[in-house]
């Protein structure tokens, strides 16, 4: 049919497709099409914009916590009467205060008290611990780094403005004057805040760090991995390769799918009732945290492993069986090694999920206030996400930026783990 004939046959139905009315209709229909596209773009922009604001605002509040205002003080310990055999018993408070006092001469007693508030209240303990670690410091002059208290740190970083009326800030004009004197003495600096990574938790923001939380998370994830990895793979192999197709297997499958969607807080209740209540395991321990996380990650791990076992082509099975391998040999010598990259990717991703999991750990008490990193799986500890929760609840200004910094650290770990997973997938995964 030629195009002329086509036009003829259409117009014979009595509709003039070139009329203004029809043009307007077409226009409206295409406009509706474009509107749908615009809605889609708006939806995506909203979601991604939210993500950008999230990361942006956390970075903006968090980057400040990666530096810490400190004072570098020289103390002459040879004149102080410190018994080398009993370093801990010396009057460290007096020694430190004496050294600080020389920085701003001619203060009254009440001024002095205000002056000492500028430094972290744990300064004597820090100096004592430094000397205990290195007793040779007792023989002469040596320098000590003392973190400034939170209000000073906020003043330096712009959290507290000098323009605010005096009664509305936590540091008064006199203290600011003293601080300026310290700056003039050249002892104030803001180096990188290693304490954020090497200190454990503290009531004072200037001393609080993530060491306890990071090692707590490490122990929990280790327990989680040691339990869920072998059990998950074994269960997946059984269900995929050995299980007879009957009602029990069906039940297990439905069960696994459902478990994967059970809210995490319910696993916390399980851990609280069973591991702490019935088995009497210690509260706040990374061991129990690891158990709960393992039970949570198990369903996902089983599902991932089954999919990757399924994707190994049957020619490999048949070849292995054909040359006389037993079923176990076929699986453990051929199928499983070929499926391993996908399984590793899946388990790293589920471990990353477990790392960010908070609610179940709260219920088993991993939100305790612990001032030293845990020494093993039985010691009370926090984890990274629960530490974030604790700091988010703390009223001091300094903890706001610490919380954001802790979140950035957590996100960095997640990015690292997911990056490894993606690398493994692209490097080792086979496409059949």
């Amino acid at each position: 049919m030629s195009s002329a004939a086509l036009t003829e046959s259409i117009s014979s139905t009595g509709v003039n497709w070139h009329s203004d009315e029809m043009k307007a209709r077409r226009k409206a229909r295409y406009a509706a099409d474009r509107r749908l596209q615009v809605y889609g773009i708006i939806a995506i922009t909203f979601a991604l914009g939210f993500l950008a604001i999230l990361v942006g605002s956390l970075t903006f509040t968090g980057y400040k916590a990666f530096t810490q205002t400190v004072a570098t003080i020289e103390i002459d310990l040879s004149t102080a009467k410190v018994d080398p055999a009993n370093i801990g018993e010396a009057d460290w408070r007096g020694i430190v205060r004496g050294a600080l006092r020389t920085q701003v001469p001619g203060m009254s007693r009440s001024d002095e008290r205000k002056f000492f508030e500028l430094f972290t209240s744990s300064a004597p303990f820090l100096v004592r611990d430094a000397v205990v670690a290195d007793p040779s410091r007792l023989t002469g002059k040596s320098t000590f780094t003392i973190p400034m208290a939170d209000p000073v740190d906020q003043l330096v970083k712009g959290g507290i403005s000098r323009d605010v009326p005096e009664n509305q800030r936590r540091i008064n004009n006199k203290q600011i004057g003293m601080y300026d004197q310290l700056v003039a003495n050249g002892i104030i600096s803001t180096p990188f805040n290693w304490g954020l990574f090497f200190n454990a938790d503290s009531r004072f923001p200037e001393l609080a760090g993530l060491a306890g939380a990071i090692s707590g998370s490490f122990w929990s994830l280790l327990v989680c991995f040691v339990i869920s990895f072998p059990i998950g793979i074994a269960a997946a192999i059984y269900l995929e390769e050995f299980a007879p197709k009957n009602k029990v297997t069906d039940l297990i499958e439905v069960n696994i799918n459902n478990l994967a969607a059970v809210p995490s807080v319910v696993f916390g209740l399980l851990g609280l009732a069973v591991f702490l209540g019935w088995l009497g395991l210690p509260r706040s321990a990374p061991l129990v945290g690891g158990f709960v996380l393992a039970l949570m990650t198990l369903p996902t791990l089983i599902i991932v492993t089954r999919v990757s076992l399924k994707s190994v082509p049957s020619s490999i099975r048949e070849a292995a069986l054909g040359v006389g391998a037993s079923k176990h040999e076929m699986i453990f010598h051929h199928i499983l090694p070929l499926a391993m990259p996908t399984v590793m990717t899946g388990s790293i991703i589920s471990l990353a999920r477990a790392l960010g999991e908070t609610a179940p750990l709260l219920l088993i008490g991993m939100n305790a206030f612990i001032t030293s990193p845990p020494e093993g799986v039985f010691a009370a500890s926090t984890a990274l996400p629960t530490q974030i929760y604790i700091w988010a609840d703390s009223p001091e200004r300094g903890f706001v930026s610490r919380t954001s910094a802790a979140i950035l650290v957590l996100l960095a770990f997640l990015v690292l783990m997911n990056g490894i997973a993606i690398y493994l997938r692209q490097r080792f995964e086979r496409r059949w």
Partner: protein
Amino acid sequence: MSGYLLAALALSALVMSFVGSARARATQNGASEKTHSRPIYHGLNAAIWTGVPAFIFLLLWLAGQNSVINQLVIASFPGSESLDATARSLIMSEVRQVAAGNIFKEPTPEIQAAVTHLKSLQQISAVAMVAVISAMMAIGAFLGYKVVDNRFRARHSVERSVTYFMMFSSLVAIVTTLGIIASLVFEAIQFFTKVPITEFLFGLRWEPQIAIRADQVAGQGAFGVIPVLFGTFVISLISMIVAVPTGILSAIYLTEYADKRFRAVVKPLLEILAGVPTVVYGFFAVLTVAPAVRSLGLSIGIESSPNSALAAGAVMGVMIIPFISSLSDDALAAVPRAMREGSFALGATKGETIRKVLLPAALPGIVGGVLLALSRAVGETMIVVMAAGLIAKMTVNPFDAVTTVTVQIVTLLIGDSEFDNPKTLAAFALGLVLFIVTLILNLIALRTVRKYREKY
């Protein structure tokens, strides 16, 4: 102690695997008949016999020893026959505290005696455990060594053990579910002996701040779950209002309009939203979204609570977007080509095809995805714990603070966790409600999705 035992177990199993395979190799040399299994299987078999029974026994011992020791200590405590379970557990926890060195006040002579008893029992238990485990290892190693023989089918034996381990592993999922149900139901029943179940299910007031000690001043306490469920519903609804249109529209754009390159960049970026830990969203809701909502409320003349339902719900909605988006994506992609092409052939635009053909065809799948997302919103914890309120109010005003089931569970259980007052037990009753609600949502959703997949 048990750590060293575990290490000893692993080490001796490793040694036995070498010894076993060496012996197998030795018997093979100069034997008249062919061996059935390769030497490594004889080694593995010896290792399994050495390590596994002792390991299982060790776990059982560790799991059981505390309760047995408790029973023995309590039984020897003077006058314990007349005490009820609560008083017994109180005494026991005091004894354990003193034994651990946390002494707050001078313990009574009875407690002191119980502590000595406890310590001696613990010592006996530790010695007995080491003795029994070592004996089991030695017997296992001896048998595993003796059994090595050309005719012994070591491979079958090893494979059988592996199969048993795999069967046991696949049962772990079932045991977990049973454990969840058992612990929730058990504690909830205890709760219902203190608070009638009808009051819990139909009560309109939720004020769990009751006195823990007799001399505390606190409210009478009311445990009606309705306002808590209502708050959960309000917040979930807000999150769905945010997530459903955004998720579906972005899925439509990504599957139907976007080119490959755009999709390859944007889809993983959207998935990041689902990978961010919820505690991060919670902090973000408190830090940024809640103040914004507050000023929004003030600008339209509504007094807004600092922890409004709107802030928590909206942030939760954003978290759920990728979930709905990827499930809708799957549903749209599963619509057969023929339907799409048929629609184009009739002259429909892309938009008309999507609205009149693809969406209706994909609807069951999308609904299933939305239900799964709803179950996730109901069970989501950290965002609401940090950003939503604590007081149960029956209000639909999104600027007001409401509370949710998960918030109540966490706040009731943070801090003390003695399993004897209604406040703690109420958390388990709430957990049971949460478990049942999410289970029903999940079952319906999974069924809808599966049924729909079979249709085409």
